[in-house]
């Protein structure tokens, strides 16, 4: 209890190191690559945050965090579980990139029937010999449609782009860390 109180008051003072988690769901890791494009500013970042679950740490489950960054949409049951885990542990959840925000490229399958898709790929395609639809319980089941993450959980912020630039991600995170409402100006929001 006493520890918690100290942590809370430190957080109010704004000098506590924050915890950051990231995950790529139905995405291409392009947003994570873009995240790495902040280059040497990563050193400045780790001065101010500790990484929780992220491809950078290989931690498998997200613990209590301040900020969660989600790349990619939701295409299967595992995505849902990971997303819910992030939502329940992160005070602030951010959708990063076109797939997390709108479904993006994976959602292109939404106008196709999932059953017909599986049938064609695993059973009736010309080069399939004695095919079978994979049914191992280890495998997550695909959802009938791909959803942007805001249709599954509450989302606090979005960083648009495919992918957003390293500069945009840096601007967004520093705004957040400094206590400003994040705001990407026009140059960081147009992609032509």
């Amino acid at each position: 209890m006493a520890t918690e109180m100290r942590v809370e008051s430190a957080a109010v003072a704004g000098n506590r190191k924050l915890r950051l988690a990231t995950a790529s769901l139905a995405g291409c890791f392009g947003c994570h690559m873009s995240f790495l494009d902040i280059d040497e500013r990563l050193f400045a970042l780790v001065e101010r945050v500790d990484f929780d679950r992220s491809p950078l740490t290989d931690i498998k489950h997200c613990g209590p965090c301040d900020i969660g960054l989600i790349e990619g949409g939701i295409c299967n049951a595992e995505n849902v579980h990971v997303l819910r885990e992030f939502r329940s542990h992160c005070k602030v959840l951010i959708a990063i990139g076109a797939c997390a925000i709108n479904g993006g490229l994976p959602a292109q399958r939404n106008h196709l029937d999932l059953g017909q898709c599986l049938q064609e790929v695993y059973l009736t395609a010309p080069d399939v010999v004695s095919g079978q639809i994979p049914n191992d319980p280890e495998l997550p089941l695909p959802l009938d449609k791909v959803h942007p993450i805001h249709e599954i959980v509450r989302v606090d912020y979005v960083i648009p782009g495919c992918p957003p630039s390293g500069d945009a991600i840096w601007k967004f995170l520093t705004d957040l860390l400094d206590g400003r409402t994040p705001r990407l100006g026009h140059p960081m929001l147009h992609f032509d």
Partner: protein
Amino acid sequence: MRLREAMVTEECFDARRLDDLLLPVLERHAREPGQLVQILREAQERIGYLPAPLLTAIARALKLPRAQVEGVAGFYSFFHLTPPGRYRVLFSDNITDRMLGSAEMLDRLCNRLWIERGKVSEDGLVSVDTTSCTGLCDQGPALLVNGRALTRMSAERIDRIAELIRAQLPLADWPPEYFRVDDNIRRRDSLLSVDWPAGEALQAAIARGAEAMLAEMKRSNLRGRGGAGFTTAIKWESARRAPCHGESGVRYVVCNADEGEPGTFKDRVLLSSYADLLFDGMTIAGFTIGAARGLLYLRGEYAWLLPALREKLERRRRDGLLGTALCGQPGLDFEIDIHLGAGAYVCGEETALLESLEGRRGIPRIRPPFPVSAGYRGQPTVVNNVETLCKAALIACRGGAWFAGLGTKQSTGSKLLSISGDVETPGIYEYPFGVSVEQVLRDCGAGNAQAVQVGGPSGICLAMHEFSRSIAFEDVPTAGAFMVFGAHRDMFEVARNFAHFFRHESCGFCTPCRVGTSLVADCMDKIARGLGTQYEINQVFKIHRLLHAASHCGLGQAACNPLFDTLQKFRPAYERRLCSLDFEPAFDLDQALAAARQMTGRDDPAAHFGLAARLPGVAS
């Protein structure tokens, strides 16, 4: 799918008859591109719908791009690009019709006819759907069949109508009492209490002279009755002083009879029983600003009023009140044309109305320039509401000082209220401005009212503690709608009905309104399905602020008003539907795995969502 529809379209339409059908329509409108909406309307009347080859032929004849013609045809909800059935039944979908059981009656009619709502029966006989408020809230539930209004629907009438349609009896042979539309005038004041002979007001104005008439208008301090309350005399004076553009430029008077605000029907009554007073008012406006041409923009839902209005115009022509040398005054000419709308609420906005009059989609213009300097065809134009013009006629007879003595300081004269909903005697009530809501509720027999929506969905929702407020521009302004909701009504459903109305009627031009009205309606549906959370409530507030700030016209700016008001005043009606305070998806996640479960034959815990299926190590 689209291809198949197109083929059906071609089959139903005999292209060889196209010229015979279209030529007279084109000739009557002198192949004038500005008449496109009227041409489409008349062509559809002859053919039943607007097949693709017809649009091509019209585009060619009017020398317009094909895409523009299709754009206009696709904009208005009363234009059909595919056959809508020989009997097109449209239930009025205002909340007051719903409260009288319209939704059940629509289902009943669909059942009796073995059809699905919104789809044409396979034999092409009939389709049944809803349309926005038809302005018959005082005698609902109401519906339109091929543009004719039917009132006071009941289960028996619905069953009988199903028989009539199945027997393919022409509308002319249906029981005449189905088509009876009553005025239901319950309280008369300065306007409705007098029987005004045609031309009396016009003669009075001519006797005064144009400048003096304008001075009387100023003295009267008459403000527009369409809702915005702009001072009429300023409009008239600006148009009178504004220069015409080009050598053949002339001024115009436009009467806005596109009474689309749900719950409003006062203009219907004025057009039915006080049309001469209105025509006098239009002519006086023309005389005062120096215009020789007036246009009456009649909403498509009131098309059934057209024959009587045309007859009135003919009689005025015979009596020397229309045409040239009015009342024997050489050089005093005035013509009135009636334009029919085609089902678009947004055309009640004056610049969208002008666009529609000029044959385009009803998308509001950027102001300035205001219509008084550049309106119809770019010329100085006065656009006034039906009631405003009737009041102007009154002022011609009685003088501005008399008028200014009625009502309140900033809201002179009287106001016609269209009262509907949970009251004993719905109908038209005329009051001097300044009357309290309480008084009105007493007079119409609203025993247990919990709320009144004043001014329609884009107006204001008053709760009980506000009933002492008064109807006037100083306090509660209104275009005339006054919908009363008894204590047993669910104000959430009222707001949801309005949210769907705005989604349907958004013209689609600006993104905040097109997308925002849709998002809001989805939020309301999600809450209605019991899947809403505090998140949706926050969304509604957020979108409300955004629409207010960023919409192109008043439709978008007002679209969230009813939600905002009801969330402030009837919040528990929302909250009792929320399933949690955080967030829930709008769909069943477990059901989203059903297809994959079926294809893989799996039924293990990980093939389901639920507590048991949580990943190991993840706290629930």
